[in-house]
């Protein structure tokens, strides 16, 4: 899952980014409104964390700008202001959630998960596909009751596929959602990671979950084929 942080306070942006990356998210960072708007418009993210007080373009203007361009990415507003009217204004402008600084990091994580779930067909924090269980809160993955250990990148790929279960995701989608703009990824590397996942999840099972759709991409699919 890919997250864009737009926050002018660099120290804060840095630590949020670090914390989210440790949770397996792919994080892009922008330090002012202009850069943030460019990133939001050109790098599709799953969630945007947006500070209200930003230089150049303020957060609310940025939000209404991207909503006008039909970008529906869920937005969590992050701000030092907690006036109730500001919250209402923010939500009216098109924000999906609101966090007041200083916030508890776990709460930010929980809200990000909620927003991602809201976007997907999956409505629970534990995603089940046949005997595969993915706990999005703890990042614990089991297949047939046996725990599976995944690297952060592998987990991110699996989670992305799981949120889009029974749907085909293209290599480009995958690159866009699990790699940040700094890593200049060749989409072929996706195949490498898909192989890693297959080794850990499907190898010992007759019932395969990860499917290759020729010419289109990959799909995590329940039920027998």
């Amino acid at each position, binding site marked *: 899952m890919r997250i864009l942080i737009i926050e002018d306070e660099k*120290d*804060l942006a840095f*630590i949020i980014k670090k914390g989210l990356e440790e949770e397996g998210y792919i994080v892009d960072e922008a330090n*002012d409104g202009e850069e943030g708007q460019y990133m939001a418009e050109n790098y599709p993210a799953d969630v945007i964390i947006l500070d209200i007080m930003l230089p*150049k373009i303020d957060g609310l203007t940025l939000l209404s700008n991207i909503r006008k361009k039909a970008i529906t990415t869920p937005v969590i507003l992050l701000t*030092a202001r907690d006036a109730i009217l500001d919250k209402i204004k923010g939500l009216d402008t098109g924000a999906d959630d609101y966090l007041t*600084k*200083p916030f*508890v*990091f776990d709460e930010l994580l929980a809200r990000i998960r909620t927003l991602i779930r809201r976007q997907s067909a999956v409505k629970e924090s534990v995603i089940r596909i046949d005997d595969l269980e993915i706990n999005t809160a703890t990042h614990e993955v089991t297949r047939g009751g046996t725990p599976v250990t995944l690297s952060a990148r592998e987990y991110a790929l699996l989670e992305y596929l799981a949120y889009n279960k029974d749907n085909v995701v293209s290599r480009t989608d995958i690159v866009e959602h699990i790699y940040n703009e700094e890593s200049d990824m060749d989409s072929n590397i996706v195949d490498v990671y898909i192989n890693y996942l297959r080794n850990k999840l499907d190898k010992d099972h007759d019932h395969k979950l990860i499917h290759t759709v020729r010419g289109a991409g990959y799909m995590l699919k329940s039920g027998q084929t």
Partner: protein
Amino acid sequence: MFNSIRLKLVIWFLIIFSVVFTTLEIFLYYKLESIIISKTEHHLSTTLDTIAGLLKLEDDHGQLQMELVELSNSAQGVYAEKLSGQYYQIVNASGIIIARSPSLSLADEKLPVVTNAVTPQFETVTGPNNVPIRLVSVSYRFSEGLLTLQAADSLEDNYKLLSSFRKTVIITYPVIFLLCGAGTFFITGWALRSIRSFADSIDQISDRELSKRINEEDAVHELKGLAGSFNKMLNRLELSFNKQRQFLSDASHELRTPTSIIRSYCDVTLTRERSADEYREVLRKISESVNRMCNIINRILTISRFDYNVVSFRPVRVDIQEVINDVLRLVEPNAAGRGIKINCAGKDVFVNGDREGLTEVFSNLVENAIKYNKPEGIIDINIREENGYAIISVADTGIGIPEDEIGKVFDRFYRVDSSRGQTVGSGLGLSIVGAIVESHGGNIKVESTLGKGSVFSVFLPLENLP
């Protein structure tokens, strides 16, 4: 209760009413009495004149005795009636009554005897039948020697008149007193009602609706001035209230950023085991944020100190040149680090003020001039005096301030475009400068050209030389 305007008005009105009414009644009473007495005296004098005239006439003809008998026996009208209340008698030099009016003789009464009254003597005495009378005695010289003619009128009827006047006053007094009191009570209540409705409209202005104003047009004439004063006070209150609210919200916003950095560093770091180096780095960051918070808090305290004059400084004679020299020593390393050259020109000027505060003022201005200057820039400091003011200007060759933002530089937490990454400092510096300069009775002026630089000029009143 006793501190009510209404009650006081009523009491005062009644006191004044009583004094005026009583004085008036007493005056009228004595006036009436004196009118009665003088009327009686006039009548008595006329009677005596007539008797004296008759006696003189008869005496000239040698028939005084006959006339005296005539006066005693053949009087007419009231003088002939027994105890009619109008009397006369004639007394010789030895005090023997030689003639008296039938009104006396019929009852065998006499008037108090007076002899030798060369000038007319008037007195009020108790006469026949224990009735008060006004008695006039005048002595005339006749052929038989000095005769004193005496006449008296009863005052009984007149005294009855006076006593009924007194009774009327005493009966009507409490009635009028009560009516006037009640009248005043209602009139003041009516007059004070407009004050009550005025108070009601003030009550509607709570601290949440400070922008409301009293409608001066609606106020009664006498309260228009008060309404105006109230509105002016509300303007001042609203202004300072808004300033405070803005300041508080800015201050808390400013404190929230370092707080959330600390919080997030702690939260993220505690999610798993870290290396010692990582912990060290986190602690360094946290300590940086704490420094930032302390800085903000100190500056907020400085501002409120000068704003509310919590610490009223004792003005001393301060040499501006010395203050500037101190400041230059302070900022030298910083300026040298950015290759900025500082020129200082001017003469010794003296002001009365707080040396520490003034050092704070100029170090803030010079630090800003360094911070917002271009590298290798120049700062010109000029000290001069003009029209009783010391003028100290600090000019830089920096980024300048956009025209529409010049008015805002003294607002708390204002910063020129924080996107330039120069977010060092709390944005409180210039508002501290403003507060200190104001507390010295001075003011500060800013001129700026975007891209070329800004000039901050501080005006301070010169010391008063004896």
